[in-house]
């Protein structure tokens, strides 16, 4: 799709406005249509510009009140792509718009949630907590800079989605799988290091045999350093695989900690 084929009326300014209005994202989350309310809110000025006929405009806006749920940051690519369709095809594209939204929100959420909501916050969070424990706010400040920079990129992503329409979203997906695989290697290496450096759980238990007393932790350390943290991670990983809900797992940890603290098993 080249630009001279584009019959649309939307300018970059309009698309940036959609990006900014999409900061409403999860603010309106509800259990029936999820993020649809925010989608309609974000689209409104752009749709008004596309549809000269008032009835058409109202119909197009109402269309965006249909169910939508996707990782909010990558949703901007979808908004660009659907607006490109509507800008060129008008209400003929009404059903395509909804199909496109539904078919893209799954894969984009899969990538977006794991990278932007799990991987990056876990690594940046570990580093800023690590530094904060030593009294330094540098890690936290670096995270703030990242957050602000990404916010501008997110606004810009609407334009990328629009320029490429469907093409960019599809190609983005292919390249992204190689990229995601590479970034996951770095993630795994870092997580491997974070487990022993951040989880400082030890046991104060002692064995006393006659006059000789032996600390259990010393024995464990000779087997493997950070054995307890590694073991706990393995158990938590297995429990999550057995469909134990996250909130339950957190509660299990709290109750388990109370028992271990009461009997002096762990510290």
């Amino acid at each position, binding site marked *: 799709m080249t630009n001279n084929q584009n019959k649309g009326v939307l300018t970059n300014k309009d698309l940036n406005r959609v990006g900014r209005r999409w900061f409403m994202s999860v603010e309106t989350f509800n259990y029936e249509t999820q993020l649809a309310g925010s989608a309609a809110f974000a689209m409104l000025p752009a749709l008004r510009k596309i549809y000269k006929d008032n009835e058409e405009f109202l119909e197009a806006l109402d269309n965006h009140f249909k169910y939508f749920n996707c990782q909010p940051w990558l949703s901007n690519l979808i908004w660009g792509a659907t607006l490109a369709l509507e800008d060129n095809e008008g209400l003929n594209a009404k059903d395509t718009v909804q199909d496109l939204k539904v078919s893209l929100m799954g894969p984009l959420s899969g990538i977006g949630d794991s990278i932007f909501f799990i991987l990056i*916050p876990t690594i940046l969070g570990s580093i800023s907590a690590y530094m904060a424990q030593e009294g330094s706010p540098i890690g936290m400040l670096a995270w703030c800079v990242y957050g602000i920079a990404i916010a501008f990129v997110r606004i810009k992503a609407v334009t990328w989605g629009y320029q490429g329409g469907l093409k960019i979203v599809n190609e983005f997906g292919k390249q992204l799988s190689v990229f995601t695989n590479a970034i996951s290697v770095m993630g795994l290496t870092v997580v491997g290091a974070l487990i022993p450096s951040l989880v400082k759980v030890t046991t104060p238990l002692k064995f006393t045999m006659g006059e000789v007393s032996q600390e259990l932790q010393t024995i464990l350390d000779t087997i493997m350093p950070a054995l307890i943290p590694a073991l706990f991670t393995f158990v938590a990983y297995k429990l999550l695989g057995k469909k134990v809900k996250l909130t339950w797992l957190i509660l299990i940890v709290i109750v388990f900690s109370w028992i271990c603290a009461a009997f002096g098993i762990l510290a």
Partner: protein
Amino acid sequence: MNVLQIILITLIATLKKIDQKGPQIFLYNTVFWGVLAGLVMGDVTTGLTIGATFQLMSLGVAAIGGTSVPDYQIGAIIAIAIAVSTGKGVEAGIAVGLPVAMLAVQLDVLGNIIHGVFIRKAQQYAKEQKWSSFNLMYILCIVVTGLTTGLPTFLAVAFGDVLVTTIINAMPVWFTSGLSLAGKILPVVGFAVLLRYMPVKQNIEYLLIGFVFSAYLNVPVLGVAIVGAALAFKLYKDENKSLVLGAAGAVGQGEQYDDE
């Protein structure tokens, strides 16, 4: 705690949730919200320490796809306010902050139910072209979102001071020390969630490399991150190369087949 501090702490807690659900610029940055609370309470060091504790508990806990999860940032904000104002230290702060963080799940669900009412109205107003009412519904959604954390925080810090001190004094040692032990173990849950999202089975070797560098060789996390980046970069180059070679190879094989 004076009135100004109560107002500012409540405001921070309100803005936290509005950012988390909207612009998401300081999303999950628990240390950042902790430092803000620390500045208000005049004790940035406690802000950093408690912020770090809750940050570690919150690792991997993300509200994905509209799920409601414990609100560790609110836990941190309240914990800092309580720890500094009662002078009873980090453990006392966590003992109050963590239960509120867990209760926040219920309020989040309630907020989402109320949003449903406003959004149905907004859709109706759009059809009727009542644009100021339409916009009002969105403002109300934001207000409700802010209240889900602003209100419990206000109650905890405004009326909790004396009450909280009494409760903390009545708490048995196993209760408070158990909660700080939980704070140490909870990062494990975060790593487990993260690993569930990653190709552990295919790439277990990298997890082991990172573990050995840190646990046996005591390389700092940033150093291991550089090793990880190097490994990732190598894999990226190799995979891109094999994509190109794979395509070329397929063509080559095809030609050979034709010759035969």
